[in-house]
C-alpha cells in the first residue's frame, strides 16, 4: 500500500499547512472560519471535482489523505459536512446531473459552499421509502410540503439536498426525487433540537416551499435509485477521517497512560490497559487500510458495495469500542467535564462518549448494515 510521489507530497502539504495555520493558535469559531476559508482557497474542498468544473480533479485516494490528515491534526473544519456535500450531492450530480446543473453547482462546491442533506423524517429513518414530504410540480417549480427531522445543517448552510415524493401513485422506489432546496425559503420553519454532547440538529416544517424545476437532480422519480447507488459513498462521507481521528485520540490516551499512575505504577505498565491499547492500535490500522483500499477500488472502477458495508461496520464498532474503553481506562477523572482542572485530556473523551453515540444509529445502525451485508453482499436470503 504505497502512495505515489504526488500523493506523498500532498500529505506533506497538508501537514505543513496545518502546522502553519494552527500551531500555537487557540481554537475558536473565528479560527475555524478562517481556516476553512483558507482550505477552500487551496481548492481542497473540490479535490475530487473535475477540473473543468472548478475542482482539482484528484483521485479518491487524495480524498482519504485529506480527511485522514485533517482529522489527525484536529483541524477546525467540518470534514463530515464538506465530505457529505461531495459524496452525496457531488457524486450524484456528476453521475446524473444535467450539464447546466454541473456548471452551476460544482464550482460552488469547489469554492467551499457545502450542500446539506434533507432526507430523514419522523417516520422515515433508515427506511427512506417511508418518506412522505410531497413535491408537487407546478409549472416552473415544485411546491414542497412536509416535515423533516434531524436535519443538522438547516441553520448553517444555504442549500440542502431534499428527497421528496414526486409520484405518490408509484411504489416509493419509483416515486422519489432529489432536488436542491434553499434553506430559509418562505414556508420553511425550523425547530432546533439538542442531542447528547451538545449536538445540534433541527426539525423542519415545509409549507409550500418553492423549489425551481432546474434544481431537480437528474430525472424525476429516480431519487431512490440514486440513493441506493450512492450508498457506499454516503456511508463514508468523511472517508479516512475515522482512523485519523482515532489515531489522534489514541496517541493522547497513550501519553496520558505513560504519565499517569494508579495503584503505584503507570497505567501504561498495567497489562490490562496495554491489551486495550494494543487492540485499539490494531483496529485503527485495519480501519486505515480499509479506507485506502476502498478508495483504490473506486479508482479502479470496482464494485464497492461489499467493502463499503464491511468498512462502515468495522469503523463504527472500532470507534465506539475505543470511546468505551478509553472511559474505563481514565476511571473517575474521566467523568470530569471540559473546564474542570483535573479533567484528563481536557475532558474531551467524556464529551466524545456522548457526542459520538450518534454513530450507533446514523446512516443505519450496525445491525441494519450487517443485514445489508449479509443479504446484498454475502448472498444470504432476504427475510
Amino acid at each position: 500500500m504505497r502512495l505515489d510521489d504526488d500523493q506523498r507530497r500532498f500529505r506533506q502539504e497538508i501537514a505543513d499547512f496545518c502546522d502553519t495555520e494552527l500551531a500555537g493558535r487557540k481554537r475558536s469559531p473565528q479560527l475555524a472560519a478562517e481556516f476553512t476559508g483558507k482550505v477552500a482557497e487551496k481548492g481542497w474542498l473540490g479535490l475530487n471535482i473535475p477540473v473543468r468544473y472548478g475542482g482539482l480533479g484528484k483521485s479518491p485516494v487524495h480524498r482519504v489523505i485529506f480527511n485522514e490528515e485533517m482529522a489527525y491534526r484536529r483541524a477546525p473544519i467540518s470534514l463530515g459536512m464538506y465530505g457529505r456535500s461531495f459524496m452525496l450531492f457531488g457524486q450524484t450530480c456528476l453521475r446524473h446531473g444535467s450539464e447546466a446543473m454541473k456548471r452551476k453547482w460544482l464550482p460552488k462546491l469547489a469554492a467551499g459552499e457545502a450542500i446539506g442533506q434533507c432526507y430523514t423524517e419522523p417516520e422515515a429513518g433508515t427506511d427512506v421509502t417511508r418518506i412522505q414530504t410531497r413535491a408537487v410540480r407546478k409549472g416552473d417549480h415544485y411546491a414542497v410540503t412536509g416535515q423533516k427531522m434531524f436535519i443538522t445543517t438547516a441553520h448553517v448552510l444555504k442549500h440542502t439536498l431534499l428527497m421528496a415524493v414526486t409520484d405518490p401513485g408509484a411504489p416509493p422506489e419509483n416515486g422519489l426525487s432529489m432536488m436542491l432546496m434553499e434553506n430559509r425559503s418562505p414556508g420553511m420553519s425550523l425547530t432546533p433540537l439538542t442531542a447528547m454532547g451538545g449536538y445540534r440538529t433541527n426539525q423542519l416544517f415545509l409549507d409550500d416551499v418553492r423549489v425551481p424545476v432546474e434544481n431537480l437532480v437528474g430525472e424525476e422519480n429516480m431519487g431512490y435509485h440514486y440513493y441506493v447507488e450512492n450508498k457506499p459513498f454516503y456511508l463514508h462521507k468523511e472517508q479516512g477521517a475515522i482512523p485519523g481521528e482515532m489515531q489522534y485520540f489514541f496517541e493522547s490516551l497513550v501519553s496520558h497512560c505513560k504519565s499517569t499512575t494508579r495503584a503505584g505504577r503507570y497505567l501504561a505498565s498495567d497489562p490490562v490497559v496495554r491489551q486495550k491499547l494494543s487492540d485499539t492500535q490494531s483496529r485503527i490500522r485495519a480501519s486505515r487500510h480499509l479506507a485506502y483500499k476502498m478508495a483504490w477500488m473506486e479508482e479502479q472502477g470496482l464494485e464497492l458495495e461489499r467493502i463499503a458495508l464491511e468498512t462502515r461496520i468495522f469503523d463504527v464498532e472500532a470507534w465506539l469500542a475505543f470511546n468505551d474503553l478509553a472511559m474505563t481506562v481514565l476511571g473517575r477523572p474521566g467523568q470530569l467535564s471540559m473546564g474542570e482542572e483535573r479533567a484528563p485530556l481536557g475532558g474531551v473523551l467524556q464529551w466524545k462518549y456522548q457526542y459520538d453515540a450518534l454513530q450507533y444509529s446514523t446512516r443505519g445502525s450496525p445491525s441494519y448494515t450487517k443485514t445489508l451485508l449479509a443479504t446484498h453482499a454475502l448472498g444470504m436470503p432476504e427475510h
Partner: protein
Amino acid sequence: MDFGLGEEQQMLKKSARDFLERECPPSFVRQMADDDKGYLPQMWERIAGLGWVGLAFPSQYGGGDGSFIDLMVLVSEMGRCLLPAPYLSTVTAGLHILRSGTPQQKEQLLPDICRGRLVVSLAIDEPGGTEFAPEDIRMEAGAQGGKLTLTGTKLWVPFADSADCLLIVALKDGALNTFIVDTGQPGTEVRPLTTMAADHQCEVKLNGVQVPPQQVLGDGGGTWRDLESILMMTAVLVCAYMLGGAERVLEMTVNYSRERVQFGRPIGSMQALQHHCADMSVSIEAAWALTHEAAWRIGEGLDFAAEASMAKAFTAECYTRCTQLAMMIQGGVAFMEDHELPLYYRRAKALEVMLGDPDAHREMLAHRILD
C-alpha cells in the same frame, strides 16, 4: 431455600415503584441535573418520612430494622428512575457510623440520619488516589494546641455541598481513621464538580479544620477495615441500582421496537434486534444472580468480598452494554436530550468506574482465588 422475595419485600418494591414513577419522571431527573443542590429537599423529607432512609438501621435509632435485601430491593427501584438524592451516600455513611461509632456517636447521629434531618457523606479519596487503595490516602491529622486538625483535598464526595457533615478519612498515629466534620466549619471549602452524569460529586478542601477528639469515629484505633467492608456493601447496592436502570433500559428498547415500523414491519421483528434484546435479558438475569448471592451473604453476616467483586464487575459491564445496545436499537430519537436514554447512558458509565472499575474488581477477585 427460597429464591424469591418475601411478601413484604414485594410490597416495598411495588410501593417504591408507584411513588417513584409518579414523583421522579425523567423530566425531574433532568431538572435536578441543572439544580444547585442536585435534589429536592422536600422530596428527601418525604422519602425519609416513608422510612426509606432509615430502612436498614436498627429501630433503636429510629430505623426500620430492615434487612440488606430490603435495602437492595428499594435501591433497585431508585436506580430504575435515577432518583436524584443523597440516598446511597447518606446510607453508606450511616452504616459506617453504625459499624464503627461509639455508642454516643451513634446516639447523636443515627436518629437524625434516619429521620432525614442529617445528610452525611464519606470523603475518602484524594486527587490521584484509587478506590480500595488505602495507601493512596495521604491526609494526616495534624496537632495544633492539643487539637486535631485536617488539611488537604478530598475528591468525588457525593452531595458534599448539601451534607450537614462529612466523614473524612485520614491518618492518625499511622492508622486510617474517620473524622466527623461539620461542613459549616471554618476552613472547609466545598465545590461541586461538573461531571458527565451530573451526579453531584464534589471537591472538598480542608484548611486547618479542627476536629475535637470526640469527633474521631470509634476508639481512634483505625476504621479502614470496617470502612472497606461498608464500601463493598455499597458496591453491591450500586449493582442493584444499576440493574434497576438496566431493566428500564431493556423495557424501553423492547417497547420502542414494537412501535417503530420500518421496511414494512416493526423493527422488533428483526432477528438481530431480537437477539440483542435477548442478550440484554440474559445478562441482566446473570447479573441479578451475582448480586443476590452477594446481598444474601451480606445479610447473613458471611464473607462476601469475592461475591461483591463478581457482582460489581459483571453488572457494570452489563449495564453499560445495555445502554449502548439500546442507543443502537432506538436510533436517532434516543440520542436527543429530551429522551430518557441519555440519562441512563451517562449514568451507566459513571457507575462503572465508581467503587472500583470492572478490571480492578477482577484483580481483587483473582487475588482471592489465586494468591
